[in-house]
C-alpha cells in the first residue's frame, strides 16, 4: 500500500511540476489532467469512492475540457511569459514556497516517523447496547454510574449504564460507548476501535451509584457490529449476551428481520398469520386440535435466543406466538421495505401483578452507519445537515450560469463600446451640427453659416 501511495503521489507532484514549466498551454492542461486523475486515485485510497468519481467527471472531465476548449479557441497555446519584469516575484515566490515546505512538512514528517500510528478507520467496530429488562424488575437493582447512563422511558427510572475499559490498558476508560434504551426509539451504533474490552454493566435509578452488576469480556473485531443485549435469563437473573449483528446488505428486494427473545419463560415463534390478525391464539378451537392457517417464519426461539430471516418486500401480518400457541403480540400490516435491517426484541411490559402479561416487540432498526464515503453516507449528510448550503450553492451556480451567458454574448463588448462612443459624441457635438442633422441641410457650409451668423456676406447678397 505504501508503494502504491508513493508512486501515485510522485506522479501527481511530477505532473504538477510539468504543468508549471510547459510553455505550451495545451501540454500544461494535459499534465493537470494527469494530476487530477492521481488525486482521484488517492480519494479511492482514502475510502471516498463517490468523491473520486465526482473528481473524474467534474474536474478531469468537465472543467479541463472547458480549459482546453478555451485555450484552443483563443489560439493561446504558446502565449509566452514575456516581459520578465516580474521575474523576481517568481523567484521570491519559489523561495518562500520552499521555506514554507521545510517549516511545515518537516515536523509532520518527523512525527510520522516517530509516533506509532493510531488505529486507522478500517479497524473500527460498532457497538450498541439493547436494554431488554422488563422495566418493573429493573427497579430492584442497585445503581452504578460508569460512562454514560440513559434513563428508561416510562414510569421507571432505572438505567442501564455501560462502560468499556480497554483490556490492555486497565486505567484508560473510554467514554462515548453506546447505550440503548429498550423502550423507545433507538440510538445507532457507536464506533469503537477494534480490540479487547471489558464491558461493565450496572443499573442506575438516578439517585446513587453502586458497583458493577455485570462484567463481560468482549472482543471487537474490525468491521463488525455488536449488540449487547441486557436481559433477564431463565433463572430470572440479569444476563448480558453478545450478539454479532449481520449488517451487510440484505438480498435484493428483501429486508432482514432479526428477532431476540427476552421473555424469560417463553419460547417464541414468529409466524405470518395472514388474515387472522385478531386471534389471541393460533388454536382453531378450545381443545387446540387444529391450528388456523399460518406460516412459520422463526420457530421456537428460547429465552435469550436470536434468529434472523429475510422477508420479501411487502406487507405482512406477523404474530409472536409462544409454545402454547398463544399470541403474545401482533404486528398487523407490517411493512417490509427492501434493504431495511431491523432487530425486534420481544420484552414483557411492566404490568399490574396478577393481570395478564402484555408483551412488546421493541424495534431496533438502527442499522449502523452506511459505509464511510459511500454515496449514501455523503448524501445523508449533504441533504440533511447541509441542506441550506446546498440550496445556496445551487443559487450560486444559477447566478454563474446567467453571468456566463451575459459575458459570452458575441457582441456584448462591441455594443458596450458603441454605446459609450455614441454617448460621448452626443455630449460633445456642437449645436449647429445637430440642426444640420435634423434639417438635412449642411448648416456649416458657407451660405448657411453666413445667414445664421449675419456676417458681411449678408449685405453683399442684397
Amino acid at each position: 500500500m505504501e508503494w502504491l501511495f508513493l508512486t501515485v503521489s510522485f506522479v501527481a507532484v511530477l505532473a504538477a511540476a510539468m504543468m508549471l514549466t510547459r510553455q505550451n498551454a495545451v501540454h500544461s492542461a494535459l499534465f493537470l489532467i494527469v494530476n487530477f486523475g492521481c488525486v482521484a486515485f488517492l480519494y479511492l485510497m482514502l475510502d471516498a469512492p463517490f468523491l473520486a468519481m465526482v473528481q473524474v467527471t467534474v474536474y478531469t472531465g468537465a472543467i479541463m475540457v472547458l480549459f482546453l476548449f478555451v485555450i484552443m479557441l483563443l489560439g493561446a497555446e504558446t502565449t509566452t511569459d514575456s516581459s520578465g519584469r516580474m521575474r523576481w516575484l517568481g523567484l521570491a515566490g519559489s523561495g518562500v514556497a520552499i521555506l514554507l515546505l521545510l517549516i511545515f512538512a518537516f515536523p509532520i514528517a518527523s512525527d510520522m516517523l516517530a509516533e506509532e500510528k493510531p488505529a486507522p478507520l478500517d479497524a473500527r467496530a460498532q457497538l450498541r447496547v439493547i436494554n431488554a429488562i422488563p422495566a418493573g424488575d429493573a427497579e430492584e437493582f442497585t445503581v452504578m454510574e460508569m460512562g454514560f447512563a440513559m434513563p428508561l422511558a416510562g414510569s421507571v427510572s432505572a438505567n442501564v449504564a455501560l462502560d468499556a475499559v480497554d483490556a490492555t490498558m486497565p486505567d484508560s476508560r473510554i467514554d462515548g460507548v453506546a447505550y440503548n434504551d429498550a423502550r423507545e426509539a433507538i440510538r445507532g451504533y457507536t464506533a469503537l476501535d477494534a480490540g479487547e474490552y471489558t464491558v461493565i454493566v450496572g443499573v442506575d435509578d438516578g439517585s446513587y451509584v453502586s458497583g458493577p452488576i455485570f462484567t463481560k469480556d468482549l472482543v471487537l473485531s474490525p468491521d463488525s457490529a455488536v449488540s449487547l443485549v441486557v436481559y433477564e435469563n431463565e433463572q430470572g437473573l440479569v444476563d448480558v449476551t453478545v450478539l454479532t449483528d449481520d449488517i451487510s446488505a440484505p438480498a435484493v428486494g428483501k429486508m432482514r428481520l432479526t428477532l431476540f427473545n427476552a421473555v424469560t419463560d417463553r419460547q417464541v415463534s414468529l409466524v405470518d398469520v395472514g388474515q387472522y390478525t385478531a386471534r389471541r391464539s393460533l388454536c382453531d378451537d378450545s381443545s387446540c386440535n387444529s391450528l388456523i392457517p399460518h406460516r412459520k417464519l422463526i420457530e421456537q426461539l428460547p429465552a435469550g435466543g436470536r434468529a434472523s430471516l429475510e422477508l420479501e418486500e411487502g406487507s405482512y401480518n406477523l404474530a409472536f406466538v409462544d409454545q402454547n400457541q398463544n399470541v403474545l403480540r401482533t404486528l398487523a400490516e407490517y411493512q417490509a421495505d427492501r434493504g431495511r435491517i431491523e432487530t425486534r426484541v420481544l420484552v414483557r411490559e411492566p404490568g399490574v401483578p396478577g393481570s395478564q402479561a402484555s408483551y412488546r416487540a421493541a424495534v431496533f432498526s438502527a442499522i449502523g452507519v452506511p459505509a464511510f464515503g459511500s454515496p449514501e453516507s455523503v448524501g445523508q449528510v449533504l441533504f440533511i445537515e447541509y441542506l441550506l448550503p446546498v440550496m445556496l450553492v445551487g443559487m450560486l451556480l444559477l447566478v454563474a450560469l446567467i453571468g456566463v451567458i451575459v459575458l459570452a454574448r458575441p457582441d456584448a463588448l462591441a455594443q458596450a463600446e458603441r454605446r459609450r462612443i455614441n454617448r460621448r459624441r452626443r455630449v460633445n457635438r456642437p449645436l449647429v451640427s445637430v440642426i444640420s442633422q435634423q434639417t438635412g441641410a449642411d448648416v456649416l457650409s458657407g451660405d448657411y453659416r453666413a445667414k445664421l451668423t449675419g456676417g458681411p456676406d449678408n449685405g453683399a447678397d442684397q
Partner: protein
Amino acid sequence: MNPIGVEPYIVLSMVLFLLGALGVLMRRNAILVFMSVELMLNSANLALVAFAREWGQVNGHVFVFFVMTVAAAEVAVGLALIVNIFRERQSINIDDLQQMQG
C-alpha cells in the same frame, strides 16, 4: 487495509498547494494562472478528504463537494472573462491588465 496515516496525504497536499501557488506567482498566462488555482483547490480538497477519513466524519467530503461546485462556477465565469479580455486586447498576459491600477 490501509496502513497509511493522514500525514503523508497532508504533506502531499502541501507540496501540491505550494506548486499551485508558485504557478500563480510565476506564470503570466491567465489560463495557466487559472489552472494553478485549480491545483491549489484540489490540494485543499485532498487534505479535507484525508482529515475526513482520519476522523471518520463525512463532513469533509461534503465540503469537498461544495469546493468542487464553487470551482466549477468560478472556472466558467473566469474563462468567459478571459475570452472577453482576449477579444478586446488580443492578449491574456496578466501583466498587461493594469487599467484598474491607481
